[in-house]
């Protein structure tokens, strides 16, 4: 297949706008430095071990948190969706706990885990969990009744129905949930580091912010964004493989 240059073109256009806005004087270049000077700082930082270990810390907290959140959300989501009694008993608590913003848990996190990885993980897991969980519930509810009846008529066991009908039907939702959760997990990882001071990119941003070099702040923020893009590329690749049968993917095969 031919390489798709369009995402690159889109990105270049966005970068050009970023370069142009401060240069045209729409905002002061100390408030929003042009992308070229941000890149210069980025190149400088990329030569330091501190930068890479911060990325490492953030990615580790993110990945671990996302895995825990995804496993818990998918497991619980399926269990609750398939055992109506459990769902009936948990709805009220879920509806109450879900909207509690994870940032409000920062004090709790600090009390329980201090300023280390644990605090970051608590916030990351809490936030990403709900994102995935809500998608799982919606996906599980979106099974084609005819497909489900087919499985029942062949007396698929409970596990068989989950494995062969519910899971594939819910998969598009789950993957959207994972993409949402991955982004939220990254946001929370960085936010936790930023607000609590746990090691990672967020902490670097906090330090840079109380310093006097705006381009460095933007360079670190840019790094966060690039991480987000990479995460998405990863999930998308998985999605294209897992959902080759789905209307959203198969229609793109030109006929």
């Amino acid at each position, binding site marked *: 297949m031919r390489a798709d240059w369009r995402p690159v073109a889109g990105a270049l256009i966005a970068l050009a706008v970023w370069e142009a806005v401060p240069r045209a004087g729409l905002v002061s270049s100390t408030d929003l430095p042009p992308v070229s000077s941000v890149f210069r700082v980025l190149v400088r930082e990329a030569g330091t071990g501190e930068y890479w270990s911060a990325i490492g810390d953030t990615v580790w907290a993110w990945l671990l948190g996302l895995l825990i959140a995804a496993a818990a959300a998918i497991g619980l989501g399926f269990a609750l969706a398939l055992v109506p009694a459990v769902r009936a008993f948990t709805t009220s608590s879920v509806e109450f706990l879900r909207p509690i913003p994870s940032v409000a848990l920062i004090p709790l996190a*600090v009390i329980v885990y201090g*300023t280390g990885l644990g605090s970051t993980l608590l916030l990351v897991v809490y936030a990403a969990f709900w994102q995935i969980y809500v998608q799982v519930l919606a996906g599980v509810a979106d099974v084609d009744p005819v497909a489900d009846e087919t499985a029942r008529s062949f007396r698929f066991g409970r596990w068989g129905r989950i494995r062969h009908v519910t899971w594939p039907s819910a998969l598009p939702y789950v993957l959207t949930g994972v993409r949402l959760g991955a982004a939220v997990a990254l946001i929370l990882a960085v936010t936790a580091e930023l607000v609590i001071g746990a090691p990672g990119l967020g902490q670097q941003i906090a330090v840079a912010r109380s310093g*006097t070099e705006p381009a460095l702040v933007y360079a670190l923020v840019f790094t966060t964004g690039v991480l987000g893009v990479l995460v998405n590329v990863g999930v998308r690749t998985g999605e294209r493989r897992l959902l080759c049968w789905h209307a959203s993917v198969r229609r793109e095969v030109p006929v």
Partner: protein
Amino acid sequence: GCGGSSGPDVKTQGGNAQLTVGTIPIVDVAPIYLGKQKGFFTKRHIDLTLKTAAGGAAIVPSVMSGEYQVGFSNFTSLLLARDKGLPLTVVANGVSSTGVQGKDFGAIVVGKGSPAQTAKDLAGKRVAVNTLKNIGDTSVRASVRKAGGNPGSIKFVELPFPDMPAALAGGRVDAEFIVEPQLSQVLAAGARVLTSTFVDVAPNLSVAGWFVNEKLLKSDKGLVARFVEAIRESNAYADAHPDEVRQILSQYTKISADLAPKLTLPKWPAEINRTSVATVARLATDDKVLSKTPDLTALYAS
């Protein structure tokens, strides 16, 4: 470790006590970095681990839980914590104002074209402070009162220090309570100092201090004493060697090398100016930041 009351047991390794200290990446804590570098702590059998937290609010719970043994915080926050019954004790002076009007590390500034001439003119204006119900707004009110104005009509807005320069330049606020290094930044951009507010509050105001959990004080008085000695030596060294202070900033902050020499450094006297802390406490009580007049003797270790 869960719980604010679990004992802060200090680990030792090779005969040295392992102390984890929570700091903030600002100029104020330069002496401890310098002191660590100079070996003031190791020679007293203390191995320091310095952790930067995002702010005092994150440090207090960590000292309570025993994750940090020592923390850095301004006195208003510490008074607030004691006001609510947290068993924290101040053991050493952290940072003090220079006491020189117009030449302090913190100030109230206004934008280039502002008509305001004295703090009195801030009445009815929008003033940014880094945290509300803390030393910032209390000091600003004190300055306004001192200049003969009525602080009641000031509209305070909470804004992190790093966001202040842009807000002032953009005219989003009329004045700001600001500290270094942002103070030098806004001055370079044309802002004007209205008054050095710490100087208005009290002569040689003690702004922040080093604190520990009362438990540690009870369980290991000797260790705390050694730490205090080391801090005093560090403070004195920092006061005497401003150039080295400016140098060490690059180790834990991102203050650029061209700005560091221009900063107004604070003072690091050995002793806490207890009178100034009492003034701060009275102002905070008047402003209803504190619920009752604090018992200041309980605040200090000795």
